[in-house]
C-alpha cells in the first residue's frame, strides 16, 4: 500500500453496513433489504444477504468504468488489421477469408431492432488510420490514441470480445450481461454496490457521470433502486440532483432545521422503539447532509496544480468536459468512491456510431477522450493509486470490416476490443485475437460478462454468492474471469 487514503470521518473505517446495522438495520440499510429478507425467508432457508465484506482478499478497491457509446471501431483503435488495407474495395468473398461469412458463424447474433442499417457489409473498408508500436511491450495502438498509447504498458488489451445484440441495446448488454429482450437486469456496478460496503460514508459509493441512453439508464433493477448509480454533474456548485436548496435557505437555518428533524424523529422513537424505517430515515438524512457537504469539495479542482489540470486537458476546449470527468474520477476514487461509471458520447444512439464518415467521427472523438484517459492512467500511477484502481475502457461492440455507405462502418458484434488497467491487471499484454479481417474473435473468445467476472474477482467478490432468491442467474451472467490478464 503506497498511497494514503483520505482520512475518513471521525469514525474509523467503518463499513456502511456496520454503520447502518448499528441503527438496527439489515444490509442495505433499507426497508427494501428487510423486504427481500422477509421474502427470502419464505423461499429459501439458505440465503443470507451480503455482509459487505469481500469474499476473498481483493486486489482492487475501486473501479473507473469508461464506456464509449455508439461502438468504437476495434480495427481503428486497438486491433490493427493490415489485410483491410490490402483488400480494401474488394468484397469479402473475393478474399481468402470468405468463410467469415459462413452463416453458422453468424448465428450468435440476436437482432431486436432491425434498424435498416443492415448487418453485413461486404465491401472491405481500408484502415482509416495508421498504427505504431508503443512501449516496452510494443503493442500497436492507432495514431488517434497517442496518449493512451504512451501508457500501453499498463494495459491489458482484450481483442477477442463478442456480444450478441447488433443494436445499441448492446450498451445495456455490456453493463448487465443480458440481451435487452431478456428483460432488465442489474448492472455490474449495481452488483458491486450490493456486494461491498462503503469506503467513505460521506459520498455515494456508486456514481454515474455522463448521458445514458434510455434503455441503459438504470442499474439496480431487481436489486432495487437503492442500487442505482447516483447521477453526478461535474459542477461543484450543483453536482447532485436536489443537491442544494432550490429556494434561498441559509446554511445556518438549514442546520437548525436538520437538527430539529433529527430531534423530532428521535422523540417519535419513544412510540416506535427499534423501528428500522425510522432509523434508516435518520441515517439517510445524515448521509444526505454529508454528501451535500462533501461533494462540492470532491469536485473542486482549485487545489489541483496547473500542471495536473493541463495534463487532463482541462485547458483545451475539445477535452475540457471529458478531462474534467477524468480528474473528478481520480478525486472521487481518492476519496473512496467504489464504482464510477462514465459514459462518453451518450445521447441519440451514441456518438461513436460512425455509420458514415468514420475517419472524421473517430478522429474527433478520440481527441476528446485520448488525452484525459492518458492523463488518468499516468496520474493514478504517479500517485500510487493505480495498483488498487481498476480502469476499464469498453464499448458496446466493434465496427464492420466492410464499408457502410461511402466511408462508414456498421455495428459489429462478432469481434471487438476492450482494455483494462490497474487493480491487479497485467500491463503490456494483448489477450485473444480476431481473424485477419477483424471479423470474428477467434482466439480466447470472451463474452461481456467475462469482463464483469474479472472485475469482480479483482474486487474480491464471487458473483454466485451475491445471488438473491427468486432471481435465477445463468452461467452466462456470471461469466469467467480472464486469468491470462490477471497479475
Amino acid at each position, binding site marked *: 500500500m503506497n498511497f494514503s487514503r483520505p482520512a475518513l470521518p471521525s469514525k474509523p*473505517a467503518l463499513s456502511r453496513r456496520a454503520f447502518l446495522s448499528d441503527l438496527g438495520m439489515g444490509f442495505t440499510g433499507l426497508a427494501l433489504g428487510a423486504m427481500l429478507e422477509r421474502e427470502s425467508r419464505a*423461499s429459501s432457508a439458505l440465503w443470507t444477504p451480503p455482509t459487505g465484506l469481500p469474499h476473498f482478499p481483493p486486489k482492487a478497491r475501486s473501479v473507473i468504468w469508461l464506456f464509449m457509446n455508439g461502438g468504437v471501431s476495434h480495427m481503428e483503435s486497438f486491433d490493427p488489421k493490415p489485410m483491410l488495407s490490402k483488400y480494401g474495395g474488394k468484397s469479402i468473398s473475393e478474399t481468402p477469408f470468405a468463410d467469415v461469412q459462413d452463416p453458422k458463424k453468424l448465428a450468435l447474433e*440476436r437482432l431486436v431492432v432491425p434498424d435498416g442499417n443492415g448487418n453485413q457489409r461486404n465491401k472491405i473498408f481500408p484502415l482509416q488510420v495508421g498504427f505504431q508500436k508503443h512501449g516496452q511491450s510494443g503493442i500497436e495502438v492507432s495514431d488517434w490514441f497517442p496518449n493512451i498509447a504512451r501508457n500501453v504498458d499498463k494495459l491489458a488489451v482484450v481483442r477477442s470480445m463478442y456480444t450478441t445484440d447488433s443494436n445499441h441495446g448492446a450498451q445495456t448488454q455490456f453493463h448487465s450481461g443480458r440481451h435487452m429482450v431478456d428483460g432488465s437486469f442489474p448492472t455490474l456496478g449495481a452488483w458491486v454496490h450490493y456486494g461491498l460496503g462503503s469506503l467513505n460514508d460521506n459520498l455515494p459509493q456508486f456514481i454515474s457521470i455522463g448521458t445514458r441512453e434510455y434503455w441503459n439508464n438504470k442499474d439496480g433493477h431487481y436489486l432495487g433502486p437503492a442500487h442505482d448509480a*447516483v447521477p453526478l454533474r461535474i459542477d461543484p456548485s450543483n453536482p*447532485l*440532483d436536489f443537491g442544494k436548496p432550490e429556494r434561498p435557505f441559509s446554511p445556518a437555518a438549514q442546520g437548525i432545521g*436538520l437538527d*430539529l428533524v433529527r430531534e423530532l424523529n428521535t*422523540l417519535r422513537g*419513544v412510540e416506535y422503539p427499534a423501528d428500522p424505517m425510522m432509523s434508516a430515515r435518520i441515517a439517510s438524512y445524515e448521509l444526505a447532509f454529508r454528501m451535500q457537504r462533501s461533494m462540492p469539495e470532491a469536485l473542486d479542482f482549485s487545489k489541483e496544480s496547473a500542471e495536473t489540470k493541463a495534463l487532463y486537458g482541462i485547458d483545451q476546449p475539445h477535452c475540457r468536459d471529458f478531462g474534467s470527468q477524468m480528474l473528478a474520477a481520480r478525486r472521487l476514487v481518492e476519496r473512496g468512491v467504489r464504482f464510477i461509471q462514465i459514459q462518453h458520447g451518450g445521447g441519440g444512439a451514441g456518438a461513436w456510431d460512425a455509420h458514415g464518415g468514420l475517419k472524421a467521427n473517430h478522429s474527433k472523438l478520440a481527441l476528446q477522450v485520448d488525452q484525459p484517459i492518458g492523463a488518468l492512467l499516468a496520474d493514478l500511477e504517479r500517485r500510487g493509486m493505480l495498483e488498487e484502481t481498476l480502469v476499464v475502457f469498453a464499448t458496446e461492440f466493434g465496427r464492420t470490416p466492410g464499408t457502410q455507405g461511402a466511408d462508414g462502418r456498421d455495428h459489429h458484434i462478432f469481434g471487438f476490443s476492450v482494455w483494462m488497467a490497474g487493480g491487479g491487471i497485467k500491463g503490456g499484454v494483448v489477450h485473444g485475437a480476431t481473424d485477419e479481417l477483424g471479423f470474428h474473435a477467434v482466439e480466447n473468445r470472451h463474452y461481456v460478462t467475462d469482463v464483469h467476472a474479472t472485475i469482480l474477482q479483482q474486487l474480491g467478490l464471487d458473483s454466485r454468492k451475491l445471488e438473491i432468491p427468486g432471481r435465477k442467474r445463468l452461467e452466462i451472467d456470471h461469466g469467467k474471469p480472464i486469468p491470462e490478464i490477471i497479475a
Partner: protein
Amino acid sequence: MHPRIPHLPFWLLFLAGFFFGMAPGYAGVDYLKNVKPLLQERCYSCHGGLKQKGGLRLDTAVLLRKGGESGDALSKDKAGKVRLLERVSSTDPEEHMPPKHEGERFTAAQIQILREWIEAGASAPVEEKAESDPREHWAFRARVRPAIPAAVLGGWGRNAVDAFVGQGYVAGGVGPVGEAPPEVLLRRLYLDLVGVPPTLKEMTAVEGIPVAEWYEATVESLLADPRHGQRWGRHWMDIWRYSDWWGLGAQLRNSQKHIWHWRDWIIESINADTPYDEMVRLMLAADEIAPSDPQKLRATGFLARNWFLFNRNSWLEETVEHVGKGFLGLTFNCAKCHDHKYDPISQTDFYKMRAFFEPYHVRMDVVPGEGNLERDGIPRAYDGAPEVATFRFVRGEESNADKSVRILPGVPAILSFGTLAIHPVSLPVLASQPERQPWVLDAHLAGAKKAMEAAGVLLEKQSEKLAAAEKKASEAKALPVNAVIPEASSAGASKAPAVSPEKVLPEARAEWKVAELAAALARAELGSIEARAVAMRARWDGLPNEPELKGLAIRAEREAAVARTRHAAADVALLQIRAAPEKKAAIATQAKTAEDALAKALAANAAPVQPADVYTSLYGAKWTPTRFLSSAKDDPDVPFPSLSTGRRKALAEWITDPRHPLTARVAANHLWARHMGIPLAVNTFEFGRKGAAPTQPELLDWLASELVESGWSMKHLHRLIVNSAAYRMSSSLAGAEAAVARDPDNARLWRRTPLRLEAEAVRDSILSLAGELDLSHGGASIPAAAQAESKRRSLYFYHSNNERNLFLTTFDEAAVKECYRRDESIVPQQALALTNSRLVHDAALRIAGLLFKTGATGEEAFIRSAYSYVLGIKASGAEIVACSRAMEAWRRAALPAEKDAHAMARVNLVWALLNHNDFVTLR
C-alpha cells in the same frame, strides 16, 4: 481461490473472518443442508413431485434409494459404481444429468458433496416428506369459501376479517395492539383511500367526535369520492403496467400515443365500481365484447401498451408474461425455453398462451372533434392477423421455430375446467369500417375548419406585416440612406445591423404569399373533406346521385392537391429569398422539383374524371405500423377484418370464470397488500409452487370468495378491509417487546406495519397541504417540461422509460417494466429531495401562511396545528419544546434582509415537519 497475503490491517481483519467462515463448512456433509438443496435445484423438476422421468424420484432419501426404472440410484454396482454419481459426472452427452439444455452440469465440488454423503452412508432424517402432487398446491386447488371461525378473543374484532386474523394470534402466541388514535386513523383512511391527507376542514369536521360516529361514514364518503379512483387507479396502473409511449427521439417504439385514454378508463371504472372481472375482460377483449363502444375500447390500452415497433416475439412474450403474472400469479415466462421447472406448465403451454394473442395488432381510432391522430385518438387492440400461425421456438430461440406443429390457443391442463369455447366474433360494420362512426366525418370537418381559421389569422398577421414593411419602404425612399441606420440603432432594442428596405420588402411579400396560399390550401382541404364526406355518405346510403358526388369528391381532392403544391412552391420561393448566396443553387433545384409537382397536379386536375378514378376515403382509424420486416420502412398495412378470432374473449372468460382458482385470489391479495403493506401471499405475481404459501390462507380464500360473490366489487373488499379491527390497529411498538420477539415480521398481523408513502402520495400530499393540488381528472399526460409548474396529481405526469419525473423516481415510483409491488427504499436522495426541492420550500411557505391565517397565531398553537395538519399526530410536550427552541434559533439566525423573522421561523418549522419521518410514513 487462495487467500492472498494482505497489504493492510484492513485485510488482516478480513482474513480472520475468512478462515473463521471456512471452519464450519468442514464439519461433514449434511443431507438437509448440503445435499437436498442441491438435488432440489438441479433434479427435482424432472425427478420429483412435478415429473418422474424414468420413474425416478429424488425428493427424499428413501425415494433416492428406491431408484427408478434403471435401478437403484445409490448403492454400488458390481463395478463399484454408484449410478447417481455416474450420471451427474458422465462426460457422455447421452448419459449425463441434467441432460443437455436442461440445466447446468454439476461442478466437481457438488459431485464431491454427493460422493461424501453417499460414502458416509447416505443418512437422512426418517420423517422426510416427499414433494406433494402439484395438483395439491394450494393455489391450483379450487377455492372453497371457508367458514368464518368463531371469535377467539373476547371482545376483539369488528368483522370476519378479524375472525381469521384472530385465529393466527392463538397459533402464534401474540395478541393485537390497541386501536390507533383518532387523528392517525383519519390520516390513514385519507391517504389510503384517496391518496392525500385530510384538509383542515375535513379534520375539523370530525374533531372531538367519537371515532365510532365518523369512521364508517368517512369510509363510505371516501369510497364515493372521485379522488378514490385516482388513488386506486394508480395502484392498478402499477400492476397492469401503464406506460406512456417512448422511443428514440420522435420515433414511437413502445406503448402508444394517447395511451392515457386507458388510464382514464381505469380511473372511471374504479370510481364506478365496475366489477373486477368485467375490467379484466374488457382489457383483454373489449374489441370482441364491445366492438363499437369507444368508451370500453379504451380498456384494451392494456394490450396496446405492449406494442413494440420492431419485434413481434418480444412484444408477445411480454404480453404472455404479464397476463400470467398480473391476472393469474403464474410465471408463464419461465416456460418459454423449456417446461416450467416448478409448475405443471409445459413449454407448449407457453406458446398456447401466446396463440391467444397471435392475431392482435394495434390501431388508433378517431375520437369526436379531432381527425388528426397525432393530436388525439384511442389506441386499441384488434385482430388484424387472424391467419398467422403460432409455432413453438425450440429452446426459446426465435430463429428455431418448430414449423411441424401449429400451436393452437389453449390453457394448461391443470387449470382447465369446463371447455374453453373459442368462437369467432362477427364484428359490426362500425368496427371494421370505423369511418362510419357517426362522429368521424364531423371530426375531420372540424379539424379542417380549425385549420382554416388558423390560416386566416396567420394571413391577417402577414398582411399587417406587409403593409408596415411597405409603409417603411416608401418612407425610407424619401430619406437619404444614412438616415435609416441611426434610427434603427437609437431604438436600442436590437443591436442587429439595420436591414435595407430593399431586402425586407421582397421577403415580406413572399411571406405574405405563403400565408395567402396556406389559407387557400386550408380552404381547398376543407372543400375536399366536405366533398368526400358527402360522397361517402351517399355511398353508404346508396343514393342515386352517388356517381356524381364521387366525381365532385375526386375533383375537390385534385383541387386540394393543386393548392398543396402551389403552397409548397411558394415556400421554396421564400427560402430562396432568405438563403445565403452559397445555398441558392441547392434551393434552385428544390424550386424546380416544386414547379414540376405543381405542373403535374395542374395536369391531373385538368384531366376529365374517369370511371376508374377514386378519391381517398376519410379514415376512422389507422393501423399503427410496425417494422417487423427490417425493410427500413413500415410493414405492409394490416387491414381491419370484419371477423375477430374470438380467442382473447375466450381467454378473458376463462380467466374471469368464478371457478378459476387463481384470478380472485391474486386480485384479493393485491387489494390486501396495497392496504396493509404486506401481502397475504408474499410473491404477488408468483402463486405457483415456487412462491411462498399465504400466511393466512383462509383469510385470502375468504376475501377472494367475497370478491367473487359480491359481483367482483372492489369497493366491497375495500370496505371489509378498512372497517376491520386489524386495519384500525396502531403501528406503535411501545411495550410490544414480547410480540416483537415472537413475530418480528408481523406475519400474524398483531399490529399495523407502517408504510413508506408511495411517490405520488408524497408529492400530492405536499401540494394538497399547501392547498394547491389540482384534483381535475383525465386528459393527456403532463410532459416533463410542464411538470415543475404543474399542480396536477402525480399520476397524470408523463411516465415512460424515456421520461420520468425526478422527484417521483426518487421515491420509487412504479418501474415502467413491471411493478407488482412498490419498492420502499430509504436513500439519501430522498432526504435531498425533501430538504432542497422548490416543491417543499414553496409548500412550506404556503402551509405556514394557511395555518397562521386560520388562527394558529401563538407559537404553541402554531406548533400544535402544524403537527396535526402536516403529520396527523398530536405534538407531545417535548416536541413542542424542541420546536419552540428551534424557532427561537431561527429568529436569532435570521438575516437582516429577511424582514419577518417570526414568519420565517414558522415556514422553517413546517419545512422541518415535511422532512419528518412520519410525513412520508403511513402510521
